[in-house]
């Protein structure tokens, strides 16, 4: 589907999966914020979840 633009994130995602360390950052999955967002609670008001942090803290590698 090149006609929808040149970008594709699949390769980058594979790279992230390979480099990720099991268990690191899993605490985020236990947070109320994640569970509610994932479960669609809060409706449209809570449709966006933003995880922020300094470089190197593991944002990209969250499972």
């Amino acid at each position, binding site marked *: 589907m090149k006609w929808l633009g040149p970008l594709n994130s699949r390769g980058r995602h594979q790279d992230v999966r390979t480099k990720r360390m099991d268990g690191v950052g899993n605490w985020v999955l236990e947070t109320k914020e994640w569970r509610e967002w*994932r479960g669609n609670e809060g409706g449209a008001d809570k449709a966006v979840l933003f995880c922020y942090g300094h470089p190197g803290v593991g*944002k990209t590698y969250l499972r």
Partner: protein
Amino acid sequence: MIDDLCDGPLEEDRKVAMFYCDYNQQEQTAINIMGAILKQLLVREEEVEGVRKEFQKAKEKVGGRGLRLPDIVRILKQALTTLPRVFICIDALDECLHEHLLELLELLKDILRESPKTRIFLTGRPQVEAEVKGYFATGVTVPISPKTHDVKIYLEKELEKDPERGAMSDDLRADILRIIPEKISEMCVEAPPILTPRITLD
């Protein structure tokens, strides 16, 4: 988070589209990012064919170069109406050029307005928090910092790579695994960010 979403309950009908921003890729404009997301949400053959024909038609027009941003957003919104649950994940917003970032956030807001069931997951450095909150005032934020447990796992893996494992005493190994995670956690709480990325998890 993307894998947790992808590996969720089998009975849940969902689609996950992702994008990783990267400041090295100059072509990461709002139109190309939206195009990359749309590619992942076109699931049926006839949908793909329909969009391809639209692209062809747009290209044949005088001066036409293909689909424009409003076309892509319109098709994306259309696709969202046919899918039960969609998660759009965009990583490293801070790596997106500021002008593209604002356009991207505006487009996501517009998409949510019409498809309020869509869930959007964003990550970025603290400097883009104001922008995200500016567009999604009621959105939820989670600050990320490595926990003691995270650092310990990281250190254990690194120590396993040591080619001369026998050279380190058990006491030293135990001290490393005890003291460094404690210190890192203290640094994350107390120190400016410049000191924290010595152990790089992303």
